């Protein structure tokens, strides 16, 4: 059964009120792996009876990589246009599965006139679970050794370390922390627009360094909360030829697997 996902424009035309806007982001829209996370989130939201919509083609990059590369002009061009769109639809609450979008929408748009309640999908899923709107069955991950990778933009930059861990705990998985976790979590190497350029000369790539640490935990699954981390960690693990032994998943994918039918 295909699930219908509406855009704000469609909802507006049909005269429907929407509670939350699901901000998909560039990776979630176009990157094949991240698209699967987007679809997962859309399915979870639908099955939890959340009234939501996306912006579709009216959505643009939040501008995060432009701002961090130093291109303030481009960042503000995108930000101001996005804010116009969001304000036009009277958006109050935004959820997103990308911590970079999350950070920019939450912390950088207010100064340019965009004031919204912005929630990262790990926080939102936990909230739904606590409210009883999202029901998961423990068990499918019990005894499975997994590790969790803190993204910089959710963890260190926005101080959210507990929501993803509480979700993991709810799935009865056996969480093995890496040495560099929480405030000391090691970057995957993608932030600050590094995703879009070659590395400067060095001994190794940052994602290789992180993959090494993941492999030392002996976990068969590494849980992430960011599409760019997922790309970086997947590549890092591949560089050790361990892609068949260690899976890189978004936390929402574990939730969907465990949802009560």
């Amino acid at each position: 059964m295909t699930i219908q996902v509406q855009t704000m424009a469609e909802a507006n035309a049909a005269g429907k009120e929407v509670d939350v806007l699901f901000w998909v982001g560039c990776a979630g829209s176009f990157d094949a792996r991240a698209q699967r996370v987007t679809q997962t989130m859309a399915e979870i939201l639908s099955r939890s009876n959340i009234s939501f919509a996306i912006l579709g083609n009216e959505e643009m990059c939040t501008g995060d990589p432009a701002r961090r590369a130093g291109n303030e002009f481009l960042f503000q061009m995108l930000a101001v246009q996005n804010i116009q769109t969001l304000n036009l639809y009277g958006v109050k609450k935004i959820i997103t599965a990308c911590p970079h979008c999350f950070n920019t929408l939450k912390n950088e748009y207010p100064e340019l006139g965009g004031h919204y309640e912005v929630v990262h999908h790990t926080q939102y899923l936990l909230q739904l679970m606590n409210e009883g709107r999202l029901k998961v069955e423990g068990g499918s991950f019990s005894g499975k050794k997994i590790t969790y990778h803190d993204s910089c933009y959710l963890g260190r930059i926005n101080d959210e370390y507990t929501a993803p861990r509480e979700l993991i705990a709810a799935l009865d998985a056996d969480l093995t922390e890496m040495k560099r976790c929480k405030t000391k979590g090691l970057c995957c190497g993608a932030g600050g627009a590094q995703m879009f350029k070659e590395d400067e000369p060095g001994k190794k790539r940052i994602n290789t360094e992180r993959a090494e640490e993941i492999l030392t935990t002996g976990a068969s699954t590494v849980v992430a909360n960011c599409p760019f981390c997922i790309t970086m960690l997947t590549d890092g693990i591949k560089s050790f030829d361990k892609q068949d032994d260690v899976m890189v998943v978004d936390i929402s994918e574990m939730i969907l697997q465990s949802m009560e039918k």
Partner: protein
Amino acid sequence: MQQILFLCLFSMTSILAFRKFRQIYLTIRLGKPVSATESPSARWKKMALVAFGQQKMFTNWGPALFHLFIYLAFLFTQIELIEIIVDGVTGNHRIFLPYLGRIYTLLINFIEVLSLLALLATLIFLIRRNVLKTPRVSAIELRGWPAKDANIILFGEILLVAGIFTMNSADVQLQILDPVHYHDTGTLWLSSWLSADLWQNSSINELTVVERTGWWLHLPYSKHLHVFLAFPNVYFSKFTPRGQIRNMPEITREVKSMLGLEAETTAAELAEIGEFGAKDIFDLSWQNLLNAFSCTECGRCTAVCPAHQTGKKLSPRKIMMSIRDRAEEVQKNTSAPLIPLGQNSGESTKIPKEPYDDGKSLFDYISREEIHACTTCNACVEACPILIDPLEPILQMRRYEILTESAGPADWLPMFTSMENSGCVWQMPAERDSWRTSVGT
């Protein structure tokens, strides 16, 4: 006679210290004006916790504990220091003793125990730097003066501790030999023990000299600048969300006028803007410069930097050190050089402050390779015990490169172009919502 000498020395030290502080203050003020005074009560609280309370040091217990010994010894010695100054000026000896009585004995004993612990910490720090060569404190960027500076400070601390014990143990001996002038301080455990061994057979004159030497040794040398600057640095630290990069309102005006949202920017306004980002210290904020002068070069930032950990050239500590080096160079060039006595004044090499131009910039100190390697992960920001933000100057230099020079990594150009043309980081022919057709399948 000794009082006059003391007053001279004391006032000379004060003048020198004042001049040095004024110079640093003026150099910091070369930075751009920014406001960092909102929510003062929260700032005081943060200063109490982070600067006074050493809160962030304790994410790493080992060094934190040893640093605490030195910190507490320094803090409590200030009480004795006040007494020494009062003694020196008034010609008294241990003037607080009659007022405090047994508390005085306890206090001095406490200071002595702390001093011994500080000595232990200092020795461990010296070993770490010079024998074990712990990476964080023996990195490339510390070669030359910074490494020497650290060792001098540590040796200075040994001298200070030695000064305290010399003074007190000589005093103990003098209390026995000349109880009229040297009042009974009660038993000073450590000094009494030292006293018996060291001064058993000394004559009273020699002892007086030794005691006074210890006394002078104990004077307030301005050592680590961070001892003072950590406090204002924490007070004036960034209070906006960590993930919020400082906005450029001049660009907001231009963008809004381009999108027809606000009155158009006039040509005069545009001309006023000039350059974007930071090419030199004048383009950084005074906060950034205060950060640079407060940096103790401990390297916690560099140790956690993902770029540095994987062998890239970037080191947040080196960024801060470079900013300070450049600021000091500008400061030196803009103030008149001191002409040695007996020489003709000749031509002044002083460079005017506005517009300042010595043919150099921050880019002569910080390479592009360094600023390009940053992932903006904020590990350095998190790691700094005194809330220095190495990220902002890196971003300001990136802004200069991209906005003013239209330069920067070539790899970023396709990203910029597609963001401009299609509002997406990748050049994508497909629709943004093509994933919609197969949800739930």
